[in-house]
């Protein structure tokens, strides 16, 4: 039994479309028996239509950005020896907290809990239960603060970019100024880490002057956007084999995780 777990599209609010590679993979056929949609499709009839085309058995819970009030907020399905629960995630407090999710799973009496909200694909087993978050199918923007690791990765890239620029002799002065400015800012942060930051990063209210505002390049920040993803659940008896699909720079990657329910 093959199930598709997919959610957090936020079309068109935050994203235009599911990656083409995904739509190809999810072309209508009879492979997928049931679609479990975690909500936040938002105002996109075309996306709904697409999802309903994947399998006639389409199930969906309401996300906080869905505008159909008639949708349920949680669903439970029995498969052979496994019970699977489906919730959007905004109704778990604190959001995506493992212990809260565990409590929720216990409440719903399910072995596998599929939830979303974080736009970050993950799957783990906790106290004998299996937790799945298929992430955002579109890689939609999330208001969650970026992690420190992400920011660091960004900095590395920025530095690389700057190195390259320095090789370029005929650069404008403005660029140099800007770079210096940024360096200063960076120095400041390292000297005096403030508690009011993203996990210790700078939050000093650097207020650049007007001139400086003309020369900002935020292109490298695009990589902070979540990675588009979804999951396929292959259920056989008391085993759930999970395939995690991600789309990084246009390439689809698949990972596999297995869960066996202990009797």
């Amino acid at each position, binding site marked *: 039994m093959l199930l598709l777990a997919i959610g957090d599209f936020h*079309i*068109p*609010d*935050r*994203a*235009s*479309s599911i990656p083409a590679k995904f739509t190809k993979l999810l072309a209508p056929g009879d492979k997928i028996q049931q679609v479990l949609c975690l909500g936040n499709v*938002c*105002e*996109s009839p075309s996306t709904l239509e697409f999802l309903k085309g994947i399998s006639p058995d389409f199930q969906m819970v309401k996300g*906080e*950005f869905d*505008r*159909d*009030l008639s949708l349920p*907020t949680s669903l439970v399905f029995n498969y052979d020896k496994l019970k699977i629960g489906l919730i959007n995630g*905004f109704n778990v*407090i*604190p*959001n995506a907290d493992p*212990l*809260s999710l565990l*409590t929720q799973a*216990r*409440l719903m*009496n399910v072995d596998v809990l599929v939830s979303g909200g974080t736009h970050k694909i993950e799957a783990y087993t906790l*106290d004998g239960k299996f937790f799945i978050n298929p992430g955002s199918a579109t890689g939609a*923007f999330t*208001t*969650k*603060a*970026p*992690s*420190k*690791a992400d*920011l660091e990765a*960004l900095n590395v890239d920025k530095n690389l970019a700057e190195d390259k620029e320095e090789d370029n002799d005929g650069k404008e002065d403005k660029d140099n100024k800007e770079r210096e400015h940024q360096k200063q*800012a960076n120095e400041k942060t390292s000297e005096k*880490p403030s*508690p*009011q*930051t*993203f*996990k*210790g990063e*700078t*939050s*000093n209210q*650097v*207020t*650049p002057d*007007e001139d*400086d*505002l*003309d*020369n*900002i390049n*935020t*292109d490298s*920040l695009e990589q902070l956007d979540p990675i588009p993803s979804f999951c396929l659940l292959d259920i056989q008896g008391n085993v759930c084999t999970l395939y995690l699909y991600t789309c990084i720079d246009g390439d689809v990657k698949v990972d596999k995780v297995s869960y066996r329910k202990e009797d």
Partner: protein
Amino acid sequence: MNQALDSKTLEDSLLIVKQQITLMRKCLESKNPQFMDALKHASTFLSELRTNKLSPKLYYELYVLVFDGLAYLSDFLKESHQTNHLADLYELVQYAGNIVPRLYLMITIGSVYMSIENAPKLEIMKDMLEMSAGVQDPIRGLFLRYYLSQKTKELLPTETESELKETIQFTITNFIEMNKLWVRLKHQGHSSERERRLKERKELQILVGSNLVRISQLDQIDKFYYKESILPKVLEQIVQCKDSLAQEYLLDVIIQVFPDEFHLLTLDDFLQSTLHLSEGFSMNKILVTLINRLIDFQKREPANVKVIISELSTLTLQKDEHEENHTEESDSETTKPQTSSNLFEKFYDYSHLLVENKPELNFKDLSLILEAICKLSLSYYPQDYENINKVFGFALALIHQTTQHLEIWEPLLKTPICYNFDPKLVLSLDDNYKQFASALPTAIQSANALYILEKFLEQDVRLSTVEEVKTLYELLAVWFTSEDSSDSNTNSLLFGTDSSKNEPDESPEVVSQYEALAKSIHLIHHTNPYKHFELLEIAKSFMSKSGSRVRYTYPTLLFAVIKLIRKLTIVQKLNALKLKQFCQFFSATNTELLTLVSNGTLQSEGGVLAQTCMNLNLSMALILDQSSHIDLSYEFFINSFVIYEESIVDSRLQFQCLLSIIGTLHKCRNIVNGNEDNFDALISKTALYGSKLLKKTDQCRAVYLASHLWWIIEELDEEDEIESETAKTSEDELQVVIKTDNKKVLECLQKSLRIADSCLETNVSLELFVEILSRSLYFFIHGNELITIKYLNGLIELIQNSILTIGEENTSIDTPTKHFQRTLEYIRQQAQIDSRFEEIKDR
């Protein structure tokens, strides 16, 4: 004519031919070949070709058999030409009294003669060609000349220049004569048989075309020779024959059989000649075919095309010089049109000539021709937008002349976007395009707008200048006006504020249009967020014209702003003044959306839209918190609360919204530390909202969940280091404690317990008790000092007593009982890894 009769005639003829062929072969194959007798048999079966009782199709069958018969004769002659002097034989067969057999024999022997070394090939060719004029019957003539062309095709001499010239002359002449015969067929027979005639002619067309194919197969001709010596003659005939079927077919053959480079070079001549074609001629078919060929050529061999075009321009130059000299001498022709090597201009000028010279040409044809020209320009001069502007300027002038069948122009309208790989082209076009579009019916405009937008989305075309954003939305203008004109006026004037009538019942088209429109906001992009913001403002100025349909697009716009703030925060370039602008923009936009809810424009959808508005506010608040603008963040929280209070009416939605508020507040970091009073005010209010929910279950759950707001601990990812001074290590876990208020947490849990207890249905309160137990365990695990073993044991006892009171057998409490048992099971499991759990009582 009767078909059965036809085939009977054919069968009789075939029989005779077969018999005679057999006899002929006997004569030829005997030891002493009886050549004269063989010729007589040949002549007899050839006489069958004199029939006029067969349709072209059946005549062809007969011809094929005769052809085979004559092939024996040819073969024999080839082998025995020593004994049979071919020149004599050639003369001998000319005594045949009937012309059809005579000419077939002449050609048979003549072609064998030609194959022999030192034969006077050119003379034989010419003679056979000339004598063929004796057959003036269209069908018999066509087949005879086809025979001539078939028999000679391998033998035509091409070694010297003059030979080549003769060969071409020969083929062209034969072509011209065949075409004349073919055209003449039209006028034969009774006029009631015209349809049949036409069909027959179509069956015969390939015979005529074969000559052109033959010429195209001559490797020796280059494009200049073709231009100078072949095409003019062929075109002359095509023009002169005044038959649209022939013209259409033959021009098509020319386009198909000769190489594209020839066409490129001879474009002027070709186009010029088409101006003189007959009325019934479907101009667009030929032109579209030609243009498509040229486009494919460009795609396939761009380098080659370049070379030819440069050759063309030198050729044109020479020609001009030549003409200049000429005019100086004669001074007669002073207004010779300047020929250009620019392909687009050629076609464009030509399209004008067409309109002038061919008033009968319909708009449908013209639209197709302009479409093709447009494609050509896009293919050859992808950067030259001026060309496309010209085309649309012309189309605009044409479209003003008619109001009928405007739908025929739709393909042309779509061409710039459909055909070009870079959709942005459409943004560079001038007003002609927009005016042209707006002259078409709304449905077409609308469909085109969607088409444009989908192309942009498909290719993720970024819009990064004011101009681009403006132009794109101007192209979509039809969407922004249609609703206003139809709905809002009637609403206010006729129905007042009757909200039931106001409910917009959107068609699926409109919904998909607006979905695409909303998506288009993602195309707007500038590396500089401030510039990006300006672009968003422009986008909004367009969107705002779409009445209640802003509900489709505004949320996207607002998220775009949120995203910009995040970016600026990360690069630390958030300017306070500018941020204020952002916030104002956000609030104003969000308020507009809310107005739709409050004035009742959207009845059933309203509440959910309010939820969206509130969630947008929450997202904004969270982002501002992250950027340390805690006062602004606070404001947005307050705004969210206002929306919650004023616009969220449905109890289910209230609960959902409260969960969102709790979830968002729980993620705040800076406001907690920066202005604790504000934060406390917010979370207290939240808890209060919880206790005011309509349903007890919702109240209870909201309150116990709100407890988390006083207990914010951030678990650090394993890879994260502890940098913050406030980071504390508790045992082996890495945590940042943001807020821990043991007392408040307990208060919430207690409150929720009271609410649960007040539930009238025991099974419901039991379920809630179990949930509160679970929640208490959460805080116990997290080390809330007030959630003690004693407290937990008290809860467990409470639950157990409740079950006992109701009676374990009572099925109504099955669900909560089982939930309870699962919870106890969990406690037992935890006891194995966490000693603190051991003290929890359980039976």
